[in-house]
């Protein structure tokens, strides 16, 4: 029986060995233990998507995943989107379309959109809406977010 566990995982390409409390979520470990605060906390019931990260390429709510479940996993957060100081085309598209208003939901939106574009090169509007349905934006900049995802899809396939 154990209340702490040492886990090995990769976060944004960097291997890490962490000693975590088993009742802490991946969200808590990312934010509080590692200091990667780009991933946000809001509803903590898997409804708002502010805490969305990619685990082995799949988008998940990090508030509903225990950190110990990420043992051995490849985790990607918003901090891992830009490479070598260069923004990802999706991030550029969010800037071009003024898609970030208050910005608090944006890391989650970006991660869900990344997962979508990794799976579907040229998503339809319906697919974009469906893919982002788990990411609430109270500024309701949805039209601008959709435009950004469409732009990034075009650039990726070009």
């Amino acid at each position, binding site marked *: 029986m154990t209340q702490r566990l040492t886990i090995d995982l990769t976060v944004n390409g960097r291997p890490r060995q962490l000693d975590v*409390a088993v009742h802490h979520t991946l969200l*808590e470990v990312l*934010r*509080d233990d590692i*200091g*990667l*605060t*780009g*991933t*946000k*906390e*809001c*509803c*903590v*019931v898997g*409804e*708002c998507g*502010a805490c969305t990260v990619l685990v082995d390429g799949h988008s998940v709510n990090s508030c509903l995943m225990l950190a110990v479940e990420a043992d051995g996993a490849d985790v990607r*957060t*918003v*901090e891992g*989107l*830009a490479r070598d100081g260069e*923004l990802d085309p999706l*991030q550029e598209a*969010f*800037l*071009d*379309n*003024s898609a*970030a*208003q*208050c*910005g*608090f*939901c*944006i*890391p989650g939106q*970006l991660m869900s959109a990344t997962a979508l574009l990794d799976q579907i090169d040229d998503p339809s509007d319906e697919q*974009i*809406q*469906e893919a*982002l*349905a*788990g*990411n*609430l*934006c*109270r*500024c*309701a*900049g*949805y*039209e*601008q*977010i*959709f435009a950004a995802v469409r732009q990034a899809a075009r650039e990726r396939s070009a």
Partner: protein
Amino acid sequence: MSTMKVGLSPHRVGGYERVTGAQEYLADIPFTDVLYAKLVTIPCGRGRIISIDKSAALAVPGVRLVLSAADLPQPVARFGPQYRDRPVLAVGETKFHGEPVAAVAADSKDAAEEAARLVKVEYEVLPGVYTVAQALAPDAPLVREPELRPGDELAGSNVLTRRVFEWGDVDTAQADLVIDESYSFPMITHFAIEPHAFAAAPDDDGIAIWSTIQHPYLLQRMMAELLDLPLAKVRVYAPDPGGGFGGKQNMKLEPLVAMMALQTGRPVRLVLTLDESFQASRRVSAEFRVRSGFDRDGHIIFQDIRSDYMLGAYADIAERVVTKSQYTAAGPYKVPNVRITARSILSNTTPACAFRGFGTPQVNWAVESNIDAGARALGIDRAEIRLRNLATRGEEVVPDDTPADGLWPETVRAAMDAIGWDTPTPAGRGRGIAVGIKASATTGLSYSTVRLLADGSVLVFAGTSDMGQGARTIFAQIAATELGAPMDAVNVVSGDTSVVPYDQQTSASRSTVFMGNAIMRACRDIQAQVRAMAATAESVPESQIVVDRGVVSLPGGDVPIVDIVRAGLGKLGGEIIGNGMYRKEVQPEHPLGGSPAFYEFNCTAVELSVDEETGHITIHKHVIVGDTGKSLNPAQVAGQDEGAAIQGLGHTLMEHMILDESGRIRNLGAIDYRIPTSMDLPLHMESVAIENGDGPGPYGSKGVSEGGLLSVQSAVGSAVADATGVVIRQLPLTPEHVWRSIRDARASQDQ
């Protein structure tokens, strides 16, 4: 040589941080040795606190403080932007569900949570008032103790204020048709994706406070008064809020966190859960009875509006919400006879406060729906009846006050064109159109300091919180334009009251106008200094030099500002500092303390269909037309207008807080309080800006952040009636509510 950066849509200032995760919201700020705070509450609305046993909580390792009202200096300090009515912690009884009765501070989040769970509060549920009817009942329990309302003739009731705005004579006015109906607008919460958060730390012999606040300077002043400290010893850090919408305008739990920091001598941070944020702020709910008189041509003869706005347990800024919105409750029309009787009523619910639209969407629902009813009864087109009554530029909507300051009929016609009003409505659909105005800021004061550095780059100091409206981008665009700097060479500094000069607040869509003008004036100050510098350098009289929009015009030709500055500052370098101030004075006799600086006018038109079997509404087309004066950043204008419209759709279609008999909120949190997702949007949305350069802001601009939601509910309600023949007067138009209304209407038709 154009340096014009306004009218374009450059990348948002702060955008890079927002898309990389680098933006530090309050919960993200690293603190050394911080204590985690957690609130202790009881599961009812009004409850008597019999005892609080802290012993088990204090025994939890790592717990540094368990604070209840009894541990605070007596009498417990009270605060509020309008009334000093809210205690730092509940005293004797809770007044609403979620009011903290104690708070815990510990070395770790786990310890704080465990200790909060172990604080044993013995309580008794007391009868409370949770609806307007309950609050107005003759034997209703009083929300605010009469002794806190000395000299107030309403102290024996739950009515906080009763305001009457009146002109003409409603009682003798002769109308051909009178529509007399009742309406309601439910309790709605802000649901900013960033929950409220607060931190405080002892700072030399003063205090530093971090807050997700929209009005840091007001917080600074209220905290200084509360703690009896000089303003200079209260330093407020206001990192960009992750959404505010009015819910973060005024002080809420900062006094509690400050006292915890002072008692422990350590930094303390309290980050609310989303559920707790529901208990921190909400929109004022309301009930209306409106009598509208028309002549047979559809001219509005009178409006007799009775409004009952339900505040929460503490007034916050809600009484002002009521007063200000009711002042223009008759809408953007020329109405000869008006009587508006508005009551602000206290209840044992979440303290209501400002929320985008500031009380206007509520009364708009009632008044615009009544105008629709008039149009239907008279057989007049619903857009036409509005055009017949709208004030146009220069005509008054409230006697002797700011007249209409835009081309409002033109705005309505633009919406009609965009929705195709004059084309046949497709089968199975309905259309609706509605208008709204909101009075902008009535007083205001903004200061800015702008520093033009030796290489031509610019630092703008502006204390306006950027909560997503994009204020800093607008400010940078203005400074870049006036000083000839590229956008990426302008930085806007805000969020620290010890560094950035005073700004009264960001509310009422004021920032572009008020702070924008202050920055413009600071830039003019710099331009004047550049002119003097150029005169010396070029040996030309100042009168022959013009400096404007980044360019120095000398008799011999145009030179960029940066060339003059670089040469003028010489080897020692340095900078040119400009100061600007924009002030709108208090008018003591004015019912609002001042006339509105401008009006935000908006027209919304929708086309929708209703699934009559299930009650689901599908919005096929949603058009928003706003009068912006001049869109300084068209992409941000669209973002504000469309965002406001979708937020308004949430209010219209799905949002409402549900209480049980003891005042407990049953749908706390994201599972059962529904807001629009990416799948709940209109199938097509279009926003249009009317630009006539007739606003008081820089380049003829007006504020824009609220227009898109002023009349959404009214336009949708109108369209539902058009599609189904059934008029619904209570929001929200949930599927079940629409289904039930249709069923009941059909049943009564059959009889």
